[in-house]
């Protein structure tokens, strides 16, 4: 028979390959092969030559160097993980809080929403760097100036903006330490707020009505209705936040990796990056295992 007869499902399957073919070609060239190569580099001493990279197998030497002899890497790793452990719960709680607030009905809600999502538009790239004052370009040693200007005076600025001068210094000091990080915090939470907001809007009306009829207070409503429905998204947000912090080119380990890389030590930088990646994956795995038990999925 000249014509092939395929079942409907098989035909559809072939179309599926058709839909992802473009991506697959790209992924092979720009992702799968580079990832394997980079993993291979991490076991080699790599030197750039014209036209190719000269590799010589060194086994685990690069990894040993990273964890045994490198003076800064371990320290950077600990700092990065500490920052992550500290920021993660703050970001999750804060973005949930904001999402709950802007999910309520009040005057100016549209404006508030627009403002809260705005950092998503601006917060990446050099604009954020200038705003938070970490811009590090040639000949600019005044980063301190920018950052102090934005961080220490935040509370005073707010109070002065509203028209209160000379507020108690102790109180402002306390608030200052809190708020010095809030700018960073708020500017990092855009996507997380979006994810939580969409989860909140997915809570079925029947659950809300049932709670209202039973006379649940807002506190009870939060713990017994909101939290269970939102819990899958908490997991998603944790994963997103960890990855975002991990792939951020401004975190300590990433800076170190890129430094080593621009120093032509490709093999060693690959080893650093892969060990970091391994640790992050392990951390994510642990979080996933713990959270998966706490998460409540509808219909189970």
């Amino acid at each position, binding site marked *: 028979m000249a014509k092939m007869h395929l079942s409907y*499902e098989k035909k*559809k*399957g072939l*179309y*599926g*390959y058709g*839909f*992802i073919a*473009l*991506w*697959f*070609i*790209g*992924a092979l*060239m*720009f*992702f*799968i*092969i*580079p*990832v394997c190569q*980079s993993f291979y580099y991490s076991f080699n001493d790599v030197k750039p030559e014209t*036209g*190719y990279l000269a590799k010589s197998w060194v086994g685990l030497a690069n990894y040993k160097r990273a964890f045994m002899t490198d003076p800064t890497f371990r320290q950077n790793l600990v700092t990065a993980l500490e920052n992550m452990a500290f920021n993660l719960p703050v970001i999750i709680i804060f973005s949930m809080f904001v999402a709950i607030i802007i999910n*309520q009905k*009040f005057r100016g809600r*549209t*404006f508030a929403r*627009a*403002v809260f999502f*705005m950092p998503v*538009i*601006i917060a*990446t*790239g*050099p*604009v954020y760097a*200038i705003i938070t004052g970490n811009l590090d370009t040639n*000949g600019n040693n*005044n980063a301190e*100036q*920018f950052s102090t200007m*934005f961080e220490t005076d935040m509370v005073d*600025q707010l109070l*002065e903006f509203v028209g209160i001068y000379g507020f108690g210094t102790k109180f402002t000091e306390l608030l200052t330490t809190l708020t010095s990080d809030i*700018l960073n915090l708020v500017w990092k939470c855009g996507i997380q707020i979006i*994810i939580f*907001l*969409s*989860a909140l*809007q997915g809570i079925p009306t029947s659950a809300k009505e049932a709670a209202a009829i039973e*006379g649940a*207070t807002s506190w009870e409503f939060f713990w017994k209705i909101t939290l269970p429905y939102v819990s*899958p998204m908490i997991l998603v947000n944790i994963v997103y936040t960890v990855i975002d912090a991990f*792939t951020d*080119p401004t975190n300590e380990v990433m800076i170190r990796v*890129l430094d080593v*890389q621009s120093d032509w030590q490709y093999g060693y930088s*690959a080893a650093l990056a892969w060990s970091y*990646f391994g640790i992050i994956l392990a951390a994510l795995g642990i979080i996933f295992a713990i959270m998966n038990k706490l998460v409540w999925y509808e219909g189970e």
Partner: protein
Amino acid sequence: MAANTMVSGFLKKFKPEKKYKEPKLTRSEKKERFKKRLESLTPAEQKYLKRKQFFEAVWPVFRAVIVFGLCFIILYPLIFMVSSAFRPRAEMNDPTIMWIPKTFTMSNIKDAIRAMDFWNTLKNTLILNIGCSLVQVLTCALTGYGFARFKFKGKSILFFVVIMMILVPSQIILIPQYMFFRYFNPLGIYNMITGNYINLINTAVTMYFPAFTANGIRAGLFIYLFRQSFRGLPKELEDAAYLDGCSPFRTFVQVMIPNAGSTFLTVFLLSVVWYWNDYYVSTSFFTDNRTIALMLKNLDANLTRIIFDNGNIQVNVRELIVWMESGCLISITPMLIMYILLQKNFTEGIARSGLTGM
């Protein structure tokens, strides 16, 4: 329910409903009423009602303070940006000026435009980054649909690759990618025939090629979003199209795309923004590339080179801020305008986008 509304609408035409108006009560009357109501309740219920009443009175105030405070924190850098972009540099050191400068000047903006070569840079950014982001939205949608609705062998492994694309930072695979572009060897035989490689560094191909194959900036995340959103759409939509003899591709274009509008909008916005702000990828494969984000990153050096080159002008750190903030302002303006135009659809559309389906 539909019938009900129809009937009531029908009735309305003939008999306009009279709205029941509650008789207006003075404060004391209201209080008395509430007291009477309380007396008829059990103590537990009374406590609950009082607490609820207290909470309902306090919460809006509390909420307003928080919303105002947080909005202020977010907008503060922007307010500062606008405030300092239009003020003469001498007034940066004037302690009497808080927000509104005494004189307005456009010279900072003009200088920043000159230092950033703004119009050419904008053109280049539009061609390179925005073009890529648009291409990427389409290819990611295609891939996401393939993963959402078709069954084929190896699908779970391939989808695992998508997840890995989200997880692995682009910095790790930069050098292999660089080697790929620097010594480009089409089909692996070009070198055998000619003995040479094609150098793609410094060409737009390095940006467009990954975007065209759904492997651009954060493509993994977009594929994931599209997959979730297409999975959330009812299957009947496609079945109807198939029964009418539509091919899967035509079904995708004519049935699925119109139904996934809000996801397209979300992904489009994020993709444009991330490409617009990107400086990592657009420096890696270019020796001298002029995009908005890059020019802004190097604004400091360019200012010194172009504006203060005669050495007569001494600019201190605090005064430099006016130019930096002007540069920021002009580079975010296009994004801000786009955001303001789309924000209503964006923020309201999120609820219906694929994000919920995770």
